[in-house]
């Protein structure tokens, strides 16, 4: 393209990849790729290098915002920060659908599309509302665009009265959503999430799990049409719970990981035959299992009863206040020959990025 900036850009890319300027590596930051459920909000992951400056620390944590809200209510977003990086930029907020979010995720992490296994490659038709046209059923009328056209027509023809604004649609104002039919291979998948809720898993760890699960969900939903999620929590015993409880529940006591694996195995045996389902099993824990023998038992369970049926077993070990446990090492020791077993460590939000990539890089 010959833009001068391309040279600076290439230099930056090479630094990020670690080919040059090792001294800058420690200042690498990853832009967070975090979606907030409910609110459509996204930040784009841009790898950055932060040059150190003298700046204020953590006790600089108040600001001024604008909006409704009584004292004690949550204040959303950031307030006005230390302004003035760039002169005159207008930023428009854009709504992003979960689908697009997953698209961005896939592109950023360079994730390959998942190839569903098995022979169930029935093609399903799906409609996507992506266009606009002049005619259509009233139920598909695009209100905002129609309104704009009518408003504009009335202003131009002098019919608009600002004192008593009344917009009346005419036939020519109306526009409708239109759809395209796209063909999609139909395949079903189930994600079984298991989480350690023993005493050592605190709120911070749960938040990491929640974010990680959000992105796992987003990516798999992008790749499969029919998707089910099941949730299992465990300390020394395990039980299936609903999604809400999964992220809320807090137990005390010890950890016996095999209990969760047994419940998962039962679920699989009763509901999800590997012929019909792509099965994903994820386990989140701080890895602090009660006994070495239980950890070994987990490996046996996995190897003999579960792995053959699974698309993937993902184990994600989060760091907790009590240090991180040994379970990940046991898995490495016993199951390193299984390519469907993927393990990652997540210590901070930044690691989620790498963790997701590790799980899905192989396109399974």
């Amino acid at each position, binding site marked *: *393209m010959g*833009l001068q*900036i391309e*040279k*600076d*850009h*290439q*230099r930056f*890319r090479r*630094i990020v990849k670690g080919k040059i*300027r090792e001294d*800058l590596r420690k*200042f690498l930051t990853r832009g967070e790729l975090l979606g907030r459920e409910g609110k459509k909000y996204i930040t*784009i992951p*841009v790898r*950055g*290098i932060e*040059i*150190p*400056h*003298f*700046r*204020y*620390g953590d*006790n*600089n*944590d*108040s600001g*001024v*915002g*604008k*909006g*409704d*809200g009584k004292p004690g*209510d*949550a*204040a*959303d*977003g*950031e*307030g*006005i920060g*230390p*302004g*003035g990086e*760039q*002169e*005159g*930029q*207008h*930023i*428009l*907020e*854009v709504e992003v659908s979960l689908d*697009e979010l997953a698209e*961005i995720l896939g592109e950023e992490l360079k994730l390959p599309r998942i190839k569903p296994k098995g022979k169930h490659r029935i093609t399903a038709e799906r409609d996507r509302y992506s266009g606009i046209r002049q005619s259509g059923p009233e139920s598909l009328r695009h209100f905002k665009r129609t309104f704009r056209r009518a*408003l*504009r027509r009335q*202003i*131009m023809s002098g019919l608009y009265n600002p004192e008593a604004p009344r917009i009346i649609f005419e036939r020519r104002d109306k526009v409708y959503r239109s759809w395209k039919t796209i063909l999609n291979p139909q395949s079903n998948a189930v994600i079984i999430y298991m989480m350690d809720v023993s005493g050592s898993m605190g709120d911070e760890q749960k938040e990491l799990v929640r974010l990680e699960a959000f992105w796992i969900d987003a990516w798999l939903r992008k790749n499969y049409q029919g998707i089910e999620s099941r949730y299992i929590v465990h300390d020394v015993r395990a039980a299936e719970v609903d999604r809400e409880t999964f992220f809320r529940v807090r137990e005390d006591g010890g950890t016996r990981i095999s209990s969760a694996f047994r419940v998962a195995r039962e679920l699989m045996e009763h509901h999800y035959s590997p012929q019909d389902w792509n099965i994903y099993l994820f386990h989140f824990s701080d890895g602090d299992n009660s006994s070495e023998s239980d950890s070994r038992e987990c490996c046996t369970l996995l190897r003999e009863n579960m792995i053959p049926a699974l698309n993937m077993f993902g184990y994600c070990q989060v760091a907790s206040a009590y240090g991180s446990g040994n379970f990940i090492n046991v898995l490495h020791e016993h199951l390193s020959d299984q390519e469907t077993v993927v393990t990652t460590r997540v210590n901070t939000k930044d690691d989620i990025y790498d963790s997701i990539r590790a799980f899905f890089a192989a396109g399974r």
Partner: protein
Amino acid sequence: MNPMLPKEIVKEAERIADFARREGLDFFPTIFEMLKSEQMSQFAAYGGFPQRYPHWRFGMEYEGLRKQHKYGLSRIYEMVINNNPCYAYLLVDNMMVDHKTVIAHVYAHSDFFKNNIWFSRTDRRMMDGMANHATRVRRYIERFGQERVEKFIDTCLSLENLIDPHSVFMRRTADAPLRPQQDEDDDDSAPRYPAKSYMDRYINPPARMARDRESHRAEEEKARERFPVKPVRDIMLFLLQNATLRDWEADILSIIREEAYYFAPQGQTKIMNEGWASYWHSTIMTNYVLRDDEIVDYCEHHSGTLATSPGRLNPYKMGIELFRDIERRWNTGRYGPQYDACEDMALRREWGKDKAPKGRVVGQGSPGREKIFQVRALYNDVTFLDEFLTPEFVDEQNLYHYKLDPATGKMVVVNRDFDKIKQQLLFMLTNHAQPYIFVMDGNYRNRGELYLAHSHTGPDVEIKYAVETLKQIQKVWKRPVHLAARIDDEPILFSFDGEQSSQQHIDDAIEPPANQF
């Protein structure tokens, strides 16, 4: 490299310039150029300039902007640079009505650059300046290698905020002597109380005067030994004058410093500058330019620019509303001691309504209009808010003060107290919400060590960053460097001697620097 400006736009630009002049705006000649979106991203990454010195940081900016554009998250509509003539860029695939809005907006920015006092000392030929800087740096890269030069630029960028934006209005230490000149026979070196001549002997007794003079002289004598004489805020300049640098290093340091000073007023006047530009694009567009069929699109653009999402403050919105508020207040006489003293809210609400100019367009010549022109010339964001933020305004704009709740880690609304809100806003705008760091001693412990200190005004400095920044400063100073800072109410001295970082509690055993706050 850019397509010729379409005739249509040239014509519109001239037309809008006429309206702007008629309204009293006084701007630099302004040159518009059309850019494609990639070019716009390049220019934006370069801070608005077509050329900058080679550095990875611009590439990083560029990547971020391209990605945002690609995913439709943000879009740069306009860019304008403070230069004479002023350069402004239009995005080629915008609609005509967008171009017109941007053009009106740009003329107001240009007027602000030209007339606001904080911009008065900026280099108006920075277009050439930046290109020269680029050439100089390229020459150094050819001679000394990219890695070596780039590393030094990184070091300088670490210090980029250690300048004193007010110093441009003082006499430069370069042309003023570093130590105050002293007249040996200066009789007034000791304070003398005013007195009638026959009383002078009693009010200013000669013996006492002699003693005072002596101690004053001794004090001055000591000051002469201090280096620097007073704490220095422009640390970049201090290093430039006193660090042992190679010529090319000194040149690069001076380049980064010059650019930091060039950009500083834009940071100091963000709210005012954007508010002023928005006020004028709105006034000019709605009174003169818009055609009926353009109104809907214009409104969408305008409200998008001024949109405030819950919990966020938009400088465009804050600025335009404050300017409008000032205009309204001065048109209705809602200022001065009489109004300030009035505590009857009902009376305040009705104040001066009869005096308000009638009609939809409150134009030139009104006291409100005159006032805002004066404000745009003399204020920066801090003084602007300090003087014109009123409880009524805070109430109307629905502002609140929020704080981190340590229990939940979430930001929560604390209150809507005017004083708190104002204080918080001012804090966030003062010195870019960055800590004040001073050079306290350039010859600490008589070993040529550099002693810096954080002037503590509320929050602590971030330790991790402070330690890394110290390392960068040491690369320039070459001798050990120290930073005195208060962390959790404890005075701590952070040090870096070139190999090792250390920190210790400041107590009597530690030698104090030459200067104290």
